């Protein structure tokens, strides 16, 4: 168990570090920061799991499980921020408030209950081996009201997160929604194994942390994909707009060439009109319309010249 848990611990630490760095850039990315927080809470959770396998007394086991649950509550809190930020699903305020309140109550209960929230009574310790490595197994007493409350909270929490993933999938973000849904199914499956273990008095190692680690790995890779996709989209947009700019510059260059060619015919018209005889007194100007037209063309010519020379081309 030790190598697997240690590798998982290392993965959680590195994911926390990298996503923390990605999230702390400006503007601060809440999705990445909350995920980094989840991974940062998962790391000590795994550490206390290691401690649990080394304990020699029930009191030490109760303490290790209690600390583990505190870390787990940190994970829950992080997920409460992460899921809406990642899925962009707006949960009703009442639901969010209920979950935060439930989390606070569970936290206090874990602090005050004599055996914490996970255990209803003192556990029985048994020495076992897993692939040749000795470890301390824990047989827990039957679940009490607090334990049932925790299971219900956890399950409903997963259901809501799953609903957000489905909503994301339906909205068109298929890969991201599918990744979250698959990861949540893994978390649920591993958690069910632990509940079954405690219900039947099994002494095999707990596995729910591996569900969380799997979730962490899947989401971590998915978030990295998202960062990459965003960067690629920006690069594509820059290329596209750059191509448009080049095209527009070519057009403006052609227009500037035409600009030079406008002067000569305009001068010919002005000189021609000046050379033509005007009407006598009282006859009006028979070329008035033509003069106005040439004046108008001259004005347009000046408007054309007012256009600034683009420095970008």
């Amino acid at each position, binding site marked *: 168990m030790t190598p697997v848990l240690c590798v998982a611990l290392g993965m959680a630490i590195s994911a926390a570090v990298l996503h923390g760095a990605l999230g702390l850039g400006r503007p601060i990315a809440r999705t990445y920061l909350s995920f980094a927080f989840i991974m940062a809470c998962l790391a000590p959770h795994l550490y206390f799991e290691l401690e649990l396998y080394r304990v020699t007394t029930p009191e030490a086991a109760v303490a290790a499980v209690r600390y583990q649950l505190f870390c787990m509550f940190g994970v829950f809190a992080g997920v409460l921020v992460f899921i809406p930020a990642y899925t962009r699903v707006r949960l009703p305020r009442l639901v969010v408030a209920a979950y935060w309140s439930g989390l606070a109550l569970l936290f206090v209960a874990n602090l005050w209950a004599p055996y914490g929230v996970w255990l209803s009574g003192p556990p029985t310790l048994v020495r076992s081996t897993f692939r040749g490595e000795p470890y301390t197994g824990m047989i827990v007493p039957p679940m009490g009201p607090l334990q049932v409350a925790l299971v219900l909270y956890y399950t409903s929490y997963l259901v809501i997160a799953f609903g957000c993933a489905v909503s994301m999938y339906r909205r068109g973000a298929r890969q991201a929604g599918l990744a979250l849904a698959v990861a949540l199914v893994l978390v649920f499956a591993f958690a069910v194994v632990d509940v079954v273990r405690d219900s039947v008095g099994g002494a095999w190692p707990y596995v729910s942390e591996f569900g969380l680690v799997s979730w962490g790995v899947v989401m971590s890779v998915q978030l990295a994909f998202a960062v990459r996709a965003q960067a690629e989209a920006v690069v594509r947009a820059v290329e596209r707009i750059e191509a448009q700019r080049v095209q527009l510059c070519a057009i403006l260059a052609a227009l500037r060439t035409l600009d030079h060619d406008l002067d000569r015919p305009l001068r010919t018209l002005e000189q021609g009109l000046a050379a033509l005889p005007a009407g006598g007194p009282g006859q009006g100007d028979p*070329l008035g319309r033509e003069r106005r037209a040439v004046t108008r063309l001259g004005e347009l010519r000046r408007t054309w010249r007012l256009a600034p020379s683009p420095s970008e081309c």
Partner: protein
Amino acid sequence: MTFVVWTAIGMSVSTGLLHAVLGLRRPWHATSLAFAVVMALQAAWYFCGLQIYEATSLAAAAPWARRLTVVVALGMAAFGWFLAAYARIAIPRPLIALHVAGVVAMAASAVVTPMGAGVGAAPRLTGVAMLDDGVVHIIESDLGVVQVAFFGFVALTFAAGVVLGIQLYRRGERRRGLFLSAVTAPVVIGVGLDLVRDLMGGTWLDLSELGAVSLSLVMSIQLGLDFRADDRKLAATLAGVAQRTAELSAMVEAALEVRDRLNTPLQNLELGLAMRAEDAPAERATLAPMQAAVVELAELGRAVERSLAGGRVALAHPEADR
């Protein structure tokens, strides 16, 4: 100790995986990709080291020592690639050739010697008691010139990182330079102390491993920050180019408007001059060049319209990829 090394393996695997995902985009992000390869080889290095720690005989440890040498050789090659990509400095060809030669020689030593270039004459497996009451094994040997060259080559490769970091700092890329020097210096010190240990017959564990852990963590942070910074720069570039394109579009629109407003006066002139030519045949000599000028202006207007046809297409789909 094995606890720490297994954790380090997890960190290297995860960091390598994430940076591979970040780097495998179009265009390739060479720094992230190179770092991912370094991390993968670092995980393999830790794993080979663990197998030696847990070996119970020299015969069992020997193949892992050889594999370790190959992994270190590949790691040095990958780290060289990473340094070049990260520092964006053109490295002189003779230096690259020397580095490649060193890597090849190191890898070849794993084939021609029983335990690779890192293990000298009279090798022996020594147990080292750990703080957690466990015992791990290390290979001790009498070091020769080859082993000193081996350690020297590794130390020099990481020392290049320190030097490049200082150059980056001087070039104005202060944070990037500082990070690079700060993560490579502990590895250089660790390798140096490992060499001293082997020369003095000490039995402490590889300190270079701890230096490598800090390298993976700190460089991961730096590359994450770099990635976001690049992203910000790209977004700023996008905004700038989009604004300039909008300005150019406005100019093309203005030209289009001028072209539209040319029509009425040109038609008036064309009609007026034609009527005048009929009414006053004596003035035809003066009117002819004027009529030619009107035709020329109308043709110029059409040329403007043809030029703008492409512009209209461009304006119809601005920032389609955003």
